[in-house]
C-alpha cells in the first residue's frame, strides 16, 4: 500500500516519524515486573553494613542477583583514575568510547576492552608518560640513600596496589620489575618507572573492577557472596568520586575496618565531606536527568534571532545551558537545603548575559559571562531547566512523547510501558499521525485512540504540564497559534492519580508530597551503584532504602549514604560453572 503524505520538516514535526509513541494493543498500563530469580531476603543486615532494616511491602519483588563479575572502567573512570593516581591536572582523554553511549547514566558491565579501545589507551599512556616525565622522581619518592632497584621495587608494590585497587602478590611485583629492567630495553631509573606505570595502566587489573568476593573463593563458586574489603573500597570510590580509591579507603580495606558497620559508615561520612564527591554527586544528578544529551540536539535557528549574531552559535548556547544547570544543581544540593525535593521546587534559573537575553530575563551580572540566579515562579526546578527542556525537544517543536516518557520512566520511576513493537511501521497509523498538524493534536489522538491510549494516557500528561516551555526551554503562552493549557489529567496506575494538575509547579508539589521524586531518586542511585537499571518500582531492596530514607533529612547526601550502606549493593551471586 502506498502512503501519499507530504512530509513536513523544520518547525513542523517530521510527520510520519512521530510514531514512537504508538503502542501495541497489549499495553493496558499494567506493570511489568522483573522475573524474580534467586530470592534474597530484603532488608537483612550483613556484616559490613547497616541499612535495609525496615520492612518492605508484602508484594515486593526481590532484585535479580547481581552476578560475580568484572566491570570495565568507563572512559571517564579511566581518565579520573589516571588523573588521581598520577596527580594530573586533567584526566587524559581517550579518542574512543569503548562501544558505549556517550552520555550513559552508568557504564555497561558487559563492555569489553576491544582492539580499538586498547590502542587508544596505549596512545594515551604514551602521552601521559611524556607529561609526567619531570615528576617521575617525585612519584617514585625514593627515600634518602635508597638504591634505585629497591626504590623501584617499592614503587611497583605501592603504585601497583593503588592502581589495581588491591595488594599485589610477589609474582606480580616480580613481573612488574621485569618491565623496569627489561632486557634490551636499556632503561634508566626514570624510564623504568615510566614503563611500569604504562604497563600497569594498560593491564586488565587496572581496566576492570573486580566484584568476585573473597580472594579464596573458587572462580566458579556458586551461591551468594559479598564483596571483599578492597572491592568495597572500589565500589565506594567509584560511587562517590567516579575514580580510584584514595589512601584512607585502601587503608581501611587493609586494616579490616571497612568490613565493619562502623568502619563503613566512617568512610562514607568522610567521603561525603570531600569537594570532589560533591562535584561527582552533582554530575550524577545531571546525568539522572539526562541533560548532557543536549549536545546532540540541534535546534531551529529561528529561536535565536533575538540574540546578537555572535551569540547564535548553538555550541556556545549548549555550553551555557550546561553551566546553568550545573549551577542550579549545586545551588540546591550544596548552597541551599540539599534536599532532593528542592530539585523540583526551586524556581531559580542561572543565566549569563546570553541566556538572559535568550529567555527574556533582566541580567544583573557584573560581566557578560557571570552566571547569576533569577527567580522565576513559572518554573519548577529541573523539570523546567532550559537545558532539560532543550534536551527533551525536537529541533522545532516540543516532544510530548519524549518529555512524557522520560518523566514517566526516570523522574516518577513508573514501570516502563511495553514497546510499541512493529506498530511503528503501520502505514495507516503513520498516515493518520502525519495528518495531525501539532504535537498537541497528536497527543490527543494517542490518548483517545486504541491501541495507543493504554500507554499514552500514562505518559503524555507528564509532558502536558510542561507545555508552556518551548523547544529551547523558553516560556510561552501560545503554541501553534493556540493558547497553552498546561493541564495534565493523571489516572491510575500513575502514582500521581487521581489528579488534574496545571503547570509544572503544581506537578512538582505532587511529586514531592507523594514522595515520588525521592523514591525515584533512591531507585536511580541504587541502579547506579550496581550498574543495573532497576525498572521495577516495587523492588524489595529499593523499598527498604526508600523507607529508611524517608526518616532522614531528605538530602541527596543522606540518600547516597543510605544506598552506600545497603547490604544488597555488596552481594553477588555465583553462577553455573
Amino acid at each position, binding site marked *: 500500500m502506498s*502512503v501519499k503524505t*507530504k*512530509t513536513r*520538516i523544520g518547525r513542523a514535526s517530521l*510527520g510520519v*516519524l*512521530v*510514531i514512537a509513541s504508538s503502542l501495541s494493543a497489549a499495553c493496558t498500563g499494567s506493570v511489568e515486573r522483573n522475573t524474580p530469580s534467586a530470592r534474597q531476603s530484603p532488608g537483612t543486615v550483613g556484616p559490613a553494613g547497616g541499612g535495609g532494616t525496615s520492612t518492605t511491602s508484602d508484594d515486593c519483588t526481590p532484585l535479580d542477583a547481581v*552476578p*560475580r*563479575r*568484572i566491570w570495565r572502567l568507563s572512559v571517564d573512570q579511566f581518565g579520573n583514575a589516571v588523573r588521581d593516581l598520577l596527580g594530573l591536572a586533567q584526566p587524559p582523554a581517550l*579518542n*574512543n*568510547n569503548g562501544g558505549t553511549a556517550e552520555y550513559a547514566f552508568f557504564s555497561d558491565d*558487559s563492555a*569489553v*576492552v*576491544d*582492539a*580499538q*579501545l*586498547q*590502542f587508544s589507551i*596505549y*596512545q594515551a599512556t604514551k602521552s601521559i608518560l611524556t607529561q609526567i616525565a619531570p615528576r617521575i622522581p617525585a612519584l617514585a619518592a625514593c627515600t634518602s640513600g635508597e638504591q634505585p632497584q629497591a626504590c623501584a621495587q617499592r614503587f611497583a608494590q605501592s603504585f601497583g596496589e593503588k592502581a589495581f585497587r588491591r595488594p599485589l602478590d610477589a609474582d*606480580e611485583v616480580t*613481573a612488574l620489575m621485569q*618491565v623496569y629492567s*627489561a632486557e*634490551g*630495553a*636499556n*632503561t634508566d631509573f626514570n*624510564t623504568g618507572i615510566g614503563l611500569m606505570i*604504562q*604497563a600497569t595502566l594498560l*593491564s*586488565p*587489573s587496572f581496566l*576492570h573492577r573486580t566484584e568476585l568476593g573473597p580472594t579464596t573463593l573458587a*572462580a566458579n*563458586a556458586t551461591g551468594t557472596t559479598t564483596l571483599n574489603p578492597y572491592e568495597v573500597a572500589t565500589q565506594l570510590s567509584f560511587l562517590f568520586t567516579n575514580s580510584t580509591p584514595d589512601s584512607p579507603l585502601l587503608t581501611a580495606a587493609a586494616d579490616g575496618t571497612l568490613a565493619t558497620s562502623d568502619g563503613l559508615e566512617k568512610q562514607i561520612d568522610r567521603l561525603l565531606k570531600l569537594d570532589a564527591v560533591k562535584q561527582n554527586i552533582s554530575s550524577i544528578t545531571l546525568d539522572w536527568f*539526562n541533560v548532557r*544529551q543536549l*549536545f*546532540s*540536539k*540541534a535546534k531551529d535557528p529561528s529561536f535565536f534571532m533575538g540574540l546578537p549574531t555572535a551569540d547564535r552559535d548553538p555550541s556556545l548556547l549548549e555550553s551555557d545551558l550546561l553551566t546553568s544547570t550545573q549551577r542550579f544543581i549545586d545551588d540546591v544540593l550544596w548552597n541551599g537545603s540539599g534536599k532532593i525535593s528542592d530539585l523540583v521546587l526551586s524556581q531559580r534559573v542561572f543565566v549569563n548575559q546570553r541566556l538572559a537575553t535568550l529567555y527574556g530575563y533582566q541580567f544583573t551580572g557584573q560581566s557578560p559571562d557571570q552566571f547569576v540566579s533569577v527567580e522565576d515562579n513559572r518554573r519548577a526546578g529541573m523539570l523546567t531547566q532550559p537545558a532539560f527542556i532543550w534536551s*527533551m*525537544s*525536537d529541533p522545532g517543536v516540543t516532544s510530548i512523547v519524549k518529555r512524557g516518557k522520560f518523566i514517566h520512566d526516570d523522574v516518577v520511576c513508573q514501570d516502563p510501558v511495553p*514497546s*510499541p*513493537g*512493529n506498530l*511503528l511501521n503501520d502505514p495507516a497509523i503513520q498516515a493518520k499521525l502525519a495528518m495531525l498538524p501539532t504535537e498537541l493534536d497528536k497527543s490527543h489522538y494517542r490518548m483517545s485512540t486504541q491501541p495507543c491510549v493504554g500507554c499514552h494516557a500514562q505518559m503524555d500528561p507528564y509532558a502536558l504540564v510542561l507545555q508552556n516551555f518551548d523547544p529551547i526551554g523558553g516560556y510561552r503562552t501560545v503554541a501553534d497559534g493556540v493558547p497553552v493549557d498546561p493541564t495534565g489529567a493523571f489516572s491510575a496506575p500513575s502514582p500521581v492519580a487521581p489528579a488534574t494538575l496545571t503547570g509544572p509547579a503544581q506537578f512538582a508539589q505532587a511529586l514531592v508530597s507523594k514522595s515520588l521524586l525521592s523514591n525515584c531518586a533512591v531507585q536511580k542511585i541504587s541502579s547506579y551503584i550496581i550498574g543495573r537499571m532497576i525498572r521495577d518500582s516495587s523492588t524489595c531492596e529499593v523499598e527498604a532504602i526508600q523507607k529508611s530514607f524517608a526518616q532522614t533529612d531528605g538530602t541527596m547526601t543522606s540518600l547516597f549514604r543510605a544506598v552506600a550502606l545497603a547490604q544488597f549493593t555488596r552481594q553477588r551471586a*555465583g*553462577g553455573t*560453572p
Partner: protein
Amino acid sequence: MTSYKVARRSFLAGLGGSAALLVPLLRNIEARAAGVKAPLRFLVIHHPLGTQMDKWRPSASATTQSFTLPVNSAPFAPLQQKMVMIDGLNIVAATRVAGGPDGSNTHEGGMVALMTGQPTLGQVGQQDHVAGGASIDQMLLAQSPVLGGPTSSGKTPFGSLQLAADIRSDRDEVAPRVLSYLDPDPKQSSIALARHPLYAETQPLNVYNRIFAGAAGTDTEAGTRLLAQNKSILDFMRSDLARMRKLVPNSELVKLDAQAAAIQQLEASIQGTGMVPSSTCTKPAQPLSFAQSGMGANGDLAPGGGSKLSGVDYYDPKDPNNHPHQVLGRLQLSMIKAAFACDLVRVSTFMWSAGTNWVVFPGSFNGGTIGSSPSPHHPPSHTTDPATVGWLSQIDTFYSNQNSQALQEFDAAMDMDGNSLLDNTVVVYVTEVARAYDHDQRNMPFLVFGGKNTGIKGGTFLKVTDGHLQNIDGGSSNRPTNDVWLALAPIFGVNLASLGAAKQFTGPLPGLVG
C-alpha cells in the same frame, strides 16, 4: 655473479625513460615468475535505506550478460565485467523466541538477518534485535584456511577490520549500526549482554595509527630499545590477564578473551609486525581527524530525541563545498584497500551509515529536493512523496558513485601476484531494506564483485527464478539472501551445509560462482 637486483637496476637504467612504462610489466613478470600467490580477501560494504527499484534493476526478466544499468546503479558500469547484480533475494528474519518479533521488515532486523543469517536471540528495547550468531565475515574468518584467521596457516596481524563512516542510529540501538558480530556468549542469561557486536571505528586517523603507524624499526638503537620496552609491557599485560583468568567465573571469560585479542592486535600495532612495505604495499598518508557533530541527531525515535553518538554529516553548514561524510567514507575504504594490499587483514566490513541514520544531506541534493532545509537521511524516508523519493534516489546514486570509485581503485591497485587487488577480493554490496518507505525486504539490491581469481561470474545480471519466496513483482520465485553466503563460502575454503533456520536458506545460489 651479479645479483638479480643489480642486473635489474642496470637493465632499467639502460632503458632510460621507457623504464617507467615497463616497471609494472616487469613486476608482473617477476611476480608470476616467482609464483607469488596473493591471498583472497572478503569485504562487505553496506549502504543504507535500500534503493528505488525501477532505477536500480535493468529491465531484464532473465539472467543475462547483456544489460544496461539504470541510473542508480549506472555508476557501477565500469566494473560490470567483475560484477554480478542479483535480483530475487529476500532477507528472511527469524527468532528463537517463540511468537516473538523477528525483525522482519525493519532496518534493525534487516541488518542482523542479512549479516548473520541466523535467528535472533530476541529483542531488547524498542526494536533492537539481538544477533543470535556470528556475522558472515566473522564466520568465514574463523573457518577459512585462507583468510588469515585462527585456522589459517598464515595469520594476518589484525584479523579483521570493522570500519564505518557514521554509526548514529535511532535510540543508539546496536542492531542497525553494527555489521559484524562474534558468536553470542551462551553463559549470559541476558540477551543484551550475550551478543557480541564488533563496533566499527569511525575515524580514519585511528585506523591509520593502529594499523599502519607501527613502531620504529630495528635498524636504530632507539628502535631496538623501544621494541624491547614494548615487549616487556605486553608480557606484563599477558601475565596479568593469565592471573585474572584463574579468578573469574566462566561467564566473565569472554571479557578477558576480548582483551587478549586486543593485546595481540596492540602488539601488531606497536611492534609494527606484519607491514612490509613493497611495490604493492604502501603506507597510506596520515589522514586528518574529522570533527564529529550531532547536528542531525534529532527526531522522535531516539532516546530523548536523537542518537547520543556523534557523527559526521554530508552537509556542512559552514561550507557548502565541504562534504565530510563523503571524504571520511572514502578514506575508510582506502584504509581497507591499503590493509588488504599489505596483507594486514583479509576480511573487512564497511558501513556508510546505519539504516536508521542521522546523516544530514542538503535539502536540495543533485537535483532531488526535499525542502529548503537540510535533512537527516533516514527520518523522511517513510513516504512515496515524489519529491522525497527523488531526493532519496539521488542519495542512493551518490553512494553508488562513491563505492564504484572506491572499487575502481581496488581494481587499479596491483596485488602481490601482479593481478589487480579486485581480482583477489570478493566484495558484497548490501543494504538492509529494499524499499525505504515500507521496509520491504523482497528483491534486495545485491551486488557481488570479484575478479578472475575469485571465481565470481562477472558481467552477469543474475535473475533468481528457482526459489519459493515471494517476488516483489508477483509470484514466488525468490531465494533467501543466505543462499549468497552459501555460494561464496567455498571460495574461501569453507563449506557451509546450512545457515540459519530452515526457512532462511535453500542452498548455494547457482550462477554466482564459476
